[in-house]
């Protein structure tokens, strides 16, 4: 057992200031117990440094890890379903709007009855467009959720 007063000093021997080291060395020179403790401590440090320092993984680690990642997590291809739904939805809406506006622009107005009938058809197509747009938005949200 080292002297209690010097034990802390010896445990931090490597980090001592010059003055502290002179004091520790002076004591160790005349105290067998502290000398043995310091020698044992240095042996412990030397051995554990040799045993534990420069611990690194071998080169095969990365290869094995990447193989495991490939096996456990198959590469996912992005789904095309939402994009396809976008295309169909927009195409449908554009077609309905064209169907609605087209006759209003190009066909000359004959009489009041025809004009009213055309407006009714126009409102019907507008409602259909609105319903289809709603249906498409719902479908798109669902597709986003599952893909």
């Amino acid at each position: 057992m080292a002297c209690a007063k010097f034990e802390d000093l010896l445990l931090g021997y490597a980090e001592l200031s010059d003055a502290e080291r002179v004091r520790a060395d002076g004591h160790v020179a005349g105290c067998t117990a502290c000398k043995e403790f310091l020698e044992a401590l240095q042996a412990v440090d030397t051995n554990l440094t040799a045993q534990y320092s420069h611990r690194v993984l071998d080169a095969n680690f990365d290869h094995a890890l990447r193989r495991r990642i490939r096996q456990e997590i198959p590469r996912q291809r992005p789904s095309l379903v939402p994009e396809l739904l976008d295309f169909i939805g927009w195409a449908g809406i554009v077609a309905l709007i064209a169907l609605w506006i087209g006759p209003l622009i190009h066909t000359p107005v004959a009489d009041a009855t025809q004009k009213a009938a055309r407006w009714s058809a126009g409102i019907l197509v507008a409602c259909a467009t609105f319903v289809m747009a709603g249906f498409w938005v719902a479908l798109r949200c669902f597709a986003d959720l599952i893909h």
Partner: protein
Amino acid sequence: MEQEIRACLDQKRYREAFDLLLVEYRNKVFRLCTSMLGDRAQAEDIAQDVFMRIWKALAGFRGQSSLSTWIYAITRNTCLTAIKTNASKKEVPLEEAGVERAAATVQPAISRTGVDLEALVAQLPEKHRQVLRLYYMEEKSYDEVARLLDLPMGSVKTYLHRARKQLAEAVARSRMEARNC
């Protein structure tokens, strides 16, 4: 390097971020695993589990803590799970298992100090053992040991002080006994 990895993560280039992260942290993670588990082969397996977890969670990393803090936390948690699994698998008491394992793995330490140092290390309390191993693996940096184990610097110094004192006393005692025989 951490900034480069974060830049890749911000741009959702996960594979590239993972490659950089693996180069930067592979040995740190391995050493932390070794310090906590003691056994090299198991430390390698657990390090692989750690990087699998990191790969799976990388897209969800929000940068609330530093990348290294996040990685070391995953490593510690994975090691703690492995320690619990080890403990539940073994029928022999932990202390005995530590001594057996140490005796089976490292022999050269005996010839130089006169005692089986690894067996003595295995008998230390868990925190002392982890701090001691990591201290020598991380080139005696208190700061790095504290960061890796998420312990206050004061605790690291205290654990290390006690562990080295215990080992030095055991070695000194053993040498004295050898001289008296």
